[in-house]
């Protein structure tokens, strides 16, 4: 759902895993990202090659926004958890 790094930064990534784990569309992750961007004021998506989070958003910038972020996170957790596994088309 999100990554908190030891450097005290925050980012989101790996939305493709949502599609592998649950029968949801890519619009769910797009909406999730948009909602977080609205709350934080900038995109929390991981920059290319920055898994360590050096260039990610500082946690200190999220002070006062935790509960709104958690509302969004909780909503998506429930959708993902209640969604069935995606059906895999298999060949005969």
């Amino acid at each position, binding site marked *: *759902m*999100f990554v*908190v790094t*030891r*450097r*005290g930064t*925050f980012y989101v990534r790996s939305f493709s895993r949502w599609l592998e784990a649950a*029968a949801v569309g890519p619009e769910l992750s797009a909406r999730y990202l948009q909602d977080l961007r609205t709350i934080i004021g900038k995109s929390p998506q991981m920059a290319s090659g920055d*898994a*360590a989070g050096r260039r990610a958003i*500082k*946690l*200190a910038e*999220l*002070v006062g926004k*935790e*509960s709104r*972020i*958690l509302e969004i*996170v*909780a909503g998506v*957790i*429930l959708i993902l*958890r*209640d*969604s*069935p596994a*995606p*059906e895999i*088309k298999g060949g005969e």
Partner: protein
Amino acid sequence: MLLLICSDQVRDSLIEYARYLNDVFPLRQMELALMSLNIYSDGERHLFVPNVAGTMPLPERTLVVKVEVTGRNSQPEEARISAEWQTPRTGGRGVIQESELLDQIGPAGSPSRAVAEALLQGASKTARRPNSVMLRLRPESTTPRRTGQPRCSL
């Protein structure tokens, strides 16, 4: 080999640099510890308080024992057994406990750590919460199901 750096005060930039080295050289064979040495004195009595400000232990290695069977009929003589130490493939990042992560983010009471605690605890609480909706299973229909249609309905 253990490299011990002692000083009266360990600056945050040095800790950050040690973390950087930890990521860049995951296969190093050296451990590093940073110690700040505080001495308190009233003129006669002296109190020496060493404090470990940060450590950079060797990456944990795992012994992997492989049994490879190469023959078709799986006869014992056609199996090969090997054992090797496995090292992390990427970076120096291992699995760490939440408390250790929080300690690295900042001291207790700092804004960064407070945000991290709120996010991690809030998300894990939601993930552990029982399902908020009931699933009612519907018997499989005899008609073919469309691909992507859920197996159960609300």
